[in-house]
């Protein structure tokens, strides 16, 4: 479960409000899609959620644990993949995964079961022993996804996870996301691919200029936009142009 309670974050001594009074709850077993135009505040909100940025006010809780008072406990139960697959180029894929497993204290039995399975799923087994510097953008994205899923986190947070993935990998990821939530775990992800959000998400939040302007199921969003049985793209354009 993720809870944002009146969260704000500004830059340049308060001149730019990146996230403005965000209140949002994502329930266990739910896939939540976070949408918004470029620079709307999606990545800032996600970075605050995973502890990469400190919020100015409000509170963020993951499974009831405050990210500010006990950040390490939150990190232990979350898996995160950033929007840019920046990863140590001078390590091999396997070395990176082992490092993450060590720091997340994944027992050897679990890692020897999970790592080969995930590498196989993402078709990385053959290159796991190569330096990451030889990986393509999509392969880096997949090694980060493997690292995030390896310790079977309670909450999975993905920032633009489909970018750089080939259609097969994107399809596999969607299946993994659904399966993750079917086990009662939480998934929060941002995307610009509206079709994916429309088909995959239980609920969708739309953020614009730092403010959450709409949140709910597809049906609820249609009612809010007051445009009948239209696609998410039309709803998105309608709501963000207001």
């Amino acid at each position: 479960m993720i809870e944002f309670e009146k969260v704000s974050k500004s830059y340049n001594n308060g001149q730019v409000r990146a996230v403005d009074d965000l209140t949002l709850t994502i329930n266990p077993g739910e896939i939540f899609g976070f949408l918004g135009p470029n620079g709307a505040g999606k990545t800032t909100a996600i970075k605050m959620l995973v502890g990469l940025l400190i919020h100015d006010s409000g509170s963020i809780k993951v499974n009831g644990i405050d990210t500010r008072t006990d950040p390490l406990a939150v990190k232990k139960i979350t898996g995160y993949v950033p929007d840019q697959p920046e990863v140590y180029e001078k390590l091999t894929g396997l070395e990176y995964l082992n490092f993450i497993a060590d720091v997340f204290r994944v027992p050897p039995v679990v890692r020897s079961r999970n790592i080969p399975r995930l590498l196989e799923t993402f078709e990385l087994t053959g290159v796991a022993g190569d330096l990451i510097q030889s990986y393509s953008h999509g392969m880096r994205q997949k090694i980060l996804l493997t690292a995030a899923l390896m310790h079977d986190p309670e909450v999975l947070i993905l920032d633009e996870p489909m970018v750089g993935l080939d259609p097969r990998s994107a399809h596999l990821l969607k299946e993994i996301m659904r399966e993750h939530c079917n086990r009662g775990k939480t998934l929060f992800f941002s995307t610009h691919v509206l079709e994916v959000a429309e088909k995959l998400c239980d609920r969708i939040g739309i953020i614009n200029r730092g403010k959450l302007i709409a949140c709910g199921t597809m049906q609820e969003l249609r009612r809010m936009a007051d445009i009948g049985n239209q696609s998410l793209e039309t709803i998105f354009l309608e709501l963000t142009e207001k």
Partner: protein
Amino acid sequence: MNPFFALTKTQFNQTFGLSVLKQKYFKRISQVWKPVGFLLLMGLALMPFEIGLIGFFNQFYTLLETTNQEPVLLTMAVLGGQLMVLLFGLFYLLSTFYFSGDLKLLLPLPLRPRDIIGAKMAVVLASEYLTLLPFIAPIFIVYGIRCEAAWWYWPFALAVFLLLPVIPLAISLILIIPLMRFTALVKNRDLFRILGSLAGVAIFVIFQLTVNRSGPGADGQQLQQWLSSEKVLSGIGGTVFLPVNWAVAALSLPAPLGAMAKLLAFAAVSLVPLVPVLPMAGKWFFRGVTGGYEVRSSGRRSRVITDAAFKSHSPVPAFLLRELKVFFRTPVFVLNGLIGYIIIPVILFISLQSNTMEETLPDNFQIRLIIALVAAGVIILNNSLSSIASTAISREGKMFWISKHLPLSAREQVTAKLMHSMIFPIIGAILIALIPYFFFKLTAAYFFLIVVLGVLGSLPAAEIGLIIDLIRPNLDWTDPQRAIKGFNGLLGFLAGVLIFGALALAGVVLIHYGVQLTLVCLFFSVAFLVLGLFLYWILARLAEKRYPLL
């Protein structure tokens, strides 16, 4: 704007962070004090060092005056400066041409290779001026004032200073570009690049040996005799590097016309080689760069991962292991981080090799203790100069998000980084301690004393570096050499000089008041230990505070 000038302007902007400075400090007038204050602080911190240098060169001038060999001071400046540029420029150029992240952006642009090489050379040249200035300016100033130089001495001195790094940089470029071309052909490129750079160190050592053989021993009388000999100038400079004599003559000849002729000769010999070198380098450049970007994978696609691949470690050792792997597999980090640990023992070895002090060293434990203290001082100074600790955070760059997201406290992370920063000082301490151990025939007890004192003193030095990097890390680099080449190393060194200088002064005072040397050694051990613990306490607290803000 001409593409070359546009590129050069952008390179300067990128290297020295001019736009960042403008954006951060000069757009809001209330923030201007920060860079101004920083510059003032740097100036103040450098002042004792500069005053010390001026004092030293002033005394050296007086010594030279007795034998009418004052221009030797200028030879020292020009030859020393050029050697410095040859050595550091070689590494700098290597980093610039091999490891510049921006080359990927520049290659698709309609730029001629010579434009790219020229623009990058211009930035390296500017950096070399900044490196040389604190060492060369005091010499030129002392010489100019003491010999009551004519007015034209000053513009000539400026011209010599500006021309000084050109020849060694051109030599470095000649060495670097073919190396770059052939790098693309070998399998383990990173290893080849490191070995290529070590070849640069070998050149430096040969140079040093040549100069050392033509110089005097450490004996005072020998020095006097050598200085009064006719061939002193050509001995240390001319035979090795003829243009040095022209540069020195341009500043020391009494007649302006004669001096001008020498200056023009120095300028010609500095600039003319660039005419063929730049286009020649351009011919090799593209193939070398593009070859360098080809990354080889194993090509094996059906590998089965065995359970042995999942060896587990505790979090802190795992973090330390990651630090070591990334460090050793990034050539620019290895080159810059370890250069001092190679060069300083080599220089010490060469300096002592030409002396015969051990034969005259009385069998006195007091003198041996002083040797041990001095050797420990060299170890600590060497570690203060190392950039390993002062770039420990910066080296993570854009990957810092991984460390921030790990369920590992900031205290544990900086502890692992401190452990990483202490591995090389321990090895360096042993290497340096071996030199006096063999040359002065010390016992094992003195050897251990040097190592223990050196390592204990290196701990606070590393902690100072880490603290500085925590306060002002550079995480926005696209080019790994930007991570390791910042002011943090210099700031760490200056802070180290202040703290260890104060401790050394306390030691001198104790000796002056007749305190036994064994007690002075004990004083240093306790002082280093207490300082190390205190700084660790600060470091751990600061890390917890700073990590979330970075």
